[in-house]
């Protein structure tokens, strides 16, 4: 049970923690206060419990695909929020103090949403063993190990981002935000396919031999870029499209700023 527990928790923690470390590095870059971060942790935790408690009801909604719809909605929402964050980050880098409060609010919202989504799964998973004492120690230790690995990776990643020179931090933050955001919209498209709202197709390729989704490295790549060993053509289009749109917006903003 321990390995399973590690995998379940690690996957969810990594997704949120990597997003957090990029956003925190951006906060650091703009010399903002990290107060939003603590509020987001608190709010996200509360919402995760509420969402987890009501997951049964949500699942039954919309003809049994409520879970997919809500999760896809959250993912798309986060995608849009991350675009706004990237744009505001760029603008603030060049022209100080432009809608900084809005930016902090957007980051707070994105992190809260991400924690709510991933946290609810951990909550559902862990509480399901609450009534099964023989497995509980194993599950809890696994959860701690998973959370620890996820936390360590993103803490080191955060310090790596902060340790770079500021120009690189900006560029790499923007790139990572783009990849994370594209991963979000990829997940959304997968969920919508699962709910039969987007057409299902045969996979375009199978890279599971190269990198298994079920390995720690696979989970890491999944958390960073939404790695999918057997994507369908539509998923590939959505993923590439999301990246192109976001990079286009970033490039457009950058062009406009540097022209002014």
């Amino acid at each position, binding site marked *: *049970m321990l390995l*399973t527990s590690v995998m*379940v928790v690690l996957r969810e923690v990594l997704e949120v923690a990597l997003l957090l470390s990029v956003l925190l590095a951006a906060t650091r870059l703009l010399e903002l206060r990290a107060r939003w971060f603590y509020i987001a942790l608190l709010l996200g935790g509360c919402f995760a419990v509420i969402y987890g408690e009501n*997951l*049964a009801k949500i*699942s*039954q909604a919309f*003809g*049994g695909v409520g*879970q*997919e719809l809500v999760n896809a909605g959250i993912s*798309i*929402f986060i995608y*849009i*929020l991350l*675009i*706004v964050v990237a*744009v*505001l980050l760029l*603008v603030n880098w060049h022209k100080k103090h432009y*809608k900084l409060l*809005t930016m902090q609010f*957007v980051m707070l*919202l994105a992190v809260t949403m991400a924690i709510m989504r991933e946290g609810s*799964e951990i909550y*559902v*998973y862990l509480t*399901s*063993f609450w*009534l*099964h004492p023989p497995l509980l120690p194993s599950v809890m230790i696994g959860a701690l190990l998973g959370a620890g690995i996820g936390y360590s990776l993103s803490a080191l990643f955060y310090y790596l981002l902060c340790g770079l020179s500021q120009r690189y931090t900006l560029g790499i933050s923007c790139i990572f935000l783009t990849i994370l955001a594209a991963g979000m919209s990829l997940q959304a498209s997968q969920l*919508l*396919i*699962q*709910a*039969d*709202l*987007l*057409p*299902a*197709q*045969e*996979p375009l390729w199978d890279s*599971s031999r190269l990198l*298994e*989704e*079920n390995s720690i490295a696979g989970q890491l790549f999944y958390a960073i870029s939404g790695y*999918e*060993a*057997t*994507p*369908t053509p539509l998923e590939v289009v*959505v993923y590439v*499209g999301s990246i192109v*749109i976001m990079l*286009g*917006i970033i490039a*457009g*903003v950058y062009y*406009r700023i540097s022209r002014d």
Partner: protein
Amino acid sequence: MINLLKAGKGILSSGRITGCLWLLIILLGFPLLNTCTSDTDKPTVKLEIRNHLFNPSEVAIPADTEVKLVIYNRDSSPEEFESYLLNRKKVIMGNSKAVIFIGPLPAGEYPFFGEFHPKTAQGKIIAQ
């Protein structure tokens, strides 16, 4: 949300970028169009989770056809249906059912498992 979008748009007022945003909205709106096609004609396969076991543990479905998988969780604890080959993942709460659409699949075996009890809850879908 709207305010945020407006805030975003304030910066992105150039025509090309607004066009991109529209494209995004159309892309996101696409699922709604697709809901018109009803799923009543799709074959339904029923599956049961009891005591952290899938029953039946091997499900035969027609190849190259979209199938509606209905999974009943008879346990009191939740389970997560997951398959890497099928790219499906869904939490099924205790004593409830879930609907997952799979396929069309080429003939072959597609293992799936319950993420929360992967040692026992195992099964595979056989498309033929």
